[in-house]
Every structure is written in structure tokens, then in C-alpha cells.
């Protein structure tokens, strides 16, 4: 027996799976799956190995795809994955997560949250977010009004955090019935002077949870932040980074102080790698200090970006780190970000990367 590593890659033209043994030196690429539908997020149930892929097709609408055989065959469903008649229709699934209770959650555009207790066959709308008193004032970010970040407390399935662009971070402690804003300390530079710290309306780009479930990090349109109180207050940790703007964040699988980012050159300068030189930035002390890691990454002409869900770590020792670019390049580090190799240079635009490690 040995361990097998799967990279679950969402792209604008279907899902792809890369597979290797634990050495992570020889990868097999399979795909595209999901009939080449735009696929925003692919996740795995680590207990069963069941794969779920969420997306939306311009013709056929939103759906969650499912594979119980490591991607060999897929089925899809959107039964119940709809708002009430007359409301703006659900356009696409943007985020998926599996709870401690085994339920599957889906965040969608326009922003809302659905839950499935039968492995994605049928869905129930959790109405609380739509009923939040701020809902009528939510405005979309550049990618739409999307619920792109979805975190579940590993110890309490009633506790949920979501990131919505550009409504901000919201949290529920009753399984999605009621929600409160969790944006204190995060900036909105695009608001008029004096209104830069609103209760909601922040453009959160990516929300992640450190191992242990006690700490959150967020890459925001306007800064990088850490919270040690469940998002009730946020502290800036952007000092030392090349810019305050980027999309994804990924936590180290065992160290709550370990975090990876891909800062871009700024929101009004093209949104690509600073000076066209690719780097992943790493902290090992919770954001007090940052180091750029570039070895093996293109150091010229890298006018790509990394989208909000396209950076991930695996659970092996040392941890693997992976990212996919909007230009379709998939990169890997098997030494915690020190050195990098390109696993697949020419995939479609990569929207998300997740990992699964299972016994063979």
C-alpha cells in the first residue's frame, strides 16, 4: 500500500485530474471531464474519495457533477439548486465544501448557499443569507455577485463562514439560518474617504481556515488579513508583500502560521505577476514576515495571474503546494514552496485547484 495524490483542477473548459504516487515526480493528466462545462471548483470527500465539481454552463445553467470512481465516470444534478420562482436565477456554482456531518454545501452566483444531504443528488436552499438585512445592498465584484469562499468548522457543522464578492465575509453559527457580518478591520479603498471600513461591502477575494479551525486568513482586493477570533476582527498582515492585491491564499496543512499567497502587481496595472516575474509568497509566522519563492517559475514575460481558488496545498510531508494560472499553466512544489516545476503548461484557464491524498 502507498499513498496516491490527486490534483483536482477546475477550468473554464471542464475538470481535469492529475495523479501521482507520494513521490509526486511523475504525474498522469486526465480530462477534460464534466462535458467541458465551465467548472469553478472541484473537491473530494476525503473519507470516500467521491469527487464533486461545481460550475455552470451558459446554455444549461448550474450543476454539481459527481464521480465515485476517481473521475472515470461522472453524473450531474441541479435538483433543488434554484431560487424561488421569479427571483434572479442561479447562474453557476462557485464553491463546494463537505461538512463534519457529511453534508455537501454549494455556494452560487448570485450569492447564496445550498445544502445536500444525499451526496449532491438533491439540494435545499439555506434561506438565511437571502434574508440578511444587508442583502438588497450587496453589489457584485468583477466576476459577479459570487459566493466563492465557503468554510465549515471542522468541529461544529453549524458554524459556517462565507466570502462574497463584493459583500464581504459573513458567518453563521446555526447552520445557515442567521448570519452576521465579519468585516471589522478590512478596508474598502474604493469607497469615499471616511467610509473605508464599512460593516459590509468589502471585496473579499479568498477566505481560508488554518489547520485546527481557530484562525482565518483572507486575501482581499484591498489588503491581506488574519483573524484569530473567527473573523470578528481582522488584522492587516500585508507589510512586506509586493502589493496588497491578489486573489488566492492557501494554508499549510499542519502549521497555522504557514500561509501561501500569489500577490499581483495591483488592481489597476494589469493584474499580473509583478514585473512579469512569477513568485509565490510564503510566511511561516502568521504574516509577520514574507519570503518570495521563485526557483523554477518563469522570471520574465509572466503576464498571467492566479485566480482565487487556484492555489492549494496537500497533506503530505513535506507539504506540496500547487497553483494554476489563468493562462492554463499548472505548477507544483513538493518542498513546501522552495522549488517549483510545471506539471501542465497548456490547460484551459484554471479556476481552481484542490488536492486529495488517499491510500491506494
Amino acid at each position, binding site marked *: 500500500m502507498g499513498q496516491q495524490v490527486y490534483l483536482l483542477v477546475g477550468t473554464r473548459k471542464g475538470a481535469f485530474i492529475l495523479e501521482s504516487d507520494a513521490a509526486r515526480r511523475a504525474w498522469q493528466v486526465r480530462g477534460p471531464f464534466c462535458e467541458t462545462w465551465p467548472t469553478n471548483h472541484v473537491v473530494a470527500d476525503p473519507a470516500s474519495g467521491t469527487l464533486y465539481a461545481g460550475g455552470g*454552463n*451558459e*446554455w*444549461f445553467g448550474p450543476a454539481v457533477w459527481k464521480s465515485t470512481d476517481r473521475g472515470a465516470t461522472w453524473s450531474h444534478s*441541479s435538483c433543488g*439548486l*434554484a431560487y424561488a420562482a*421569479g427571483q434572479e*436565477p*442561479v447562474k453557476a456554482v462557485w464553491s463546494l465544501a463537505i461538512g463534519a456531518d457529511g453534508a455537501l454545501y454549494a455556494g452560487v452566483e448570485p450569492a447564496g448557499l445550498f445544502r445536500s444531504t444525499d451526496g449532491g443528488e438533491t439540494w435545499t436552499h439555506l434561506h438565511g443569507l437571502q434574508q440578511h438585512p444587508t442583502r438588497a445592498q450587496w453589489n457584485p465584484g468583477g466576476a459577479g455577485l459570487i459566493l466563492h469562499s465557503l468554510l465549515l468548522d471542522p468541529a461544529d457543522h453549524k458554524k459556517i463562514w462565507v466570502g462574497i464578492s463584493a459583500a464581504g465575509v459573513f458567518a453563521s453559527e446555526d447552520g445557515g439560518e442567521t448570519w452576521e457580518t465579519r468585516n471589522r478591520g478590512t478596508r474598502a479603498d474604493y469607497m469615499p474617504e471616511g467610509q473605508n471600513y464599512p460593516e459590509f461591502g468589502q471585496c473579499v477575494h479568498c477566505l481560508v481556515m488554518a489547520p485546527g479551525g481557530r484562525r482565518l486568513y483572507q486575501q482581499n482586493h484591498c489588503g491581506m488579513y488574519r483573524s484569530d477570533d473567527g473573523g470578528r476582527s481582522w488584522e492587516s498582515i500585508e507589510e512586506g508583500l509586493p502589493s496588497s492585491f491578489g486573489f488566492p491564499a492557501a494554508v499549510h496543512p499542519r502549521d497555522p502560521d504557514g500561509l501561501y499567497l500569489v500577490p499581483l502587481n495591483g488592481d489597476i496595472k494589469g493584474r499580473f505577476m509583478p514585473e512579469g516575474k512569477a513568485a509565490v509568497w510564503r510566511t511561516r509566522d502568521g504574516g509577520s514576515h514574507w519570503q518570495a519563492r521563485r526557483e523554477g517559475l518563469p522570471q520574465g514575460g509572466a503576464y498571467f495571474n492566479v485566480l482565487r481558488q487556484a492555489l492549494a496545498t496537500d497533506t503530505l510531508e513535506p507539504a506540496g503546494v500547487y497553483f494554476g494560472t489563468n493562462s492554463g499553466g499548472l505548477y507544483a512544489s513538493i518542498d513546501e514552496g522552495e522549488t517549483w516545476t510545471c506539471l501542465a503548461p497548456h490547460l484551459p484557464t484554471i479556476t481552481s485547484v484542490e488536492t486529495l491524498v488517499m491510500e491506494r
Partner: protein
Amino acid sequence: MSGDAREPIPDEPRAPVLVRLPPHLVVLFPGAERRVALTARTVDEMVDGLDALWPGMRARLCDETPAIRRHINVFVDGRRARLSTPLTPGSDVFVLTAISGG
């Protein structure tokens, strides 16, 4: 597409119609066929008939407005139809994916 309010359903016997489906829809439903004969008085009933044959197909063709999805075109006897469009005996129905969607 503008409002898709239901219109009165004609009070006449159900008509058999021939429906053609696009390949990238059919591939989503194991066993589905490109051509299917159904009895239906309206496009809405036709979609119900498709959904009865292949559960989930309504959600691929219609949203919760309810309306035919924005980038799906249904043509009945050569004319673009809505859910409320009546079907007459022998109607030719084409379900097509709009170029605007892809």
C-alpha cells in the same frame, strides 16, 4: 427573452409533436435520444414530457423565472417559441443552443 407569462392552454386534444434535441444536451442524460415524439399542448408541457423521460432535463432547458434559459432557443414550426407557445398536431420543434451562449 422578455416575460414568459403563461397563456391560456388551447382546449383541444393533445397533439403529437416531433422534438429535436441538441447533442450536448442529450449527452448529459444517459439513454436520451436526439429525436423524440411527445404529446403536448404547449412548449411547457413538452418540457415536462422531456423531464419525465429524462429526469433533470427541465432544469437544463428552463430556469426558475420560469422561462426557457437565456441561451436556449426553442423553435416551433420555424418560429422562436416561449414556454406558453401552443403546439399543434404534427408541430416540428427544434431545441437549439444559441450562438450567444458559446
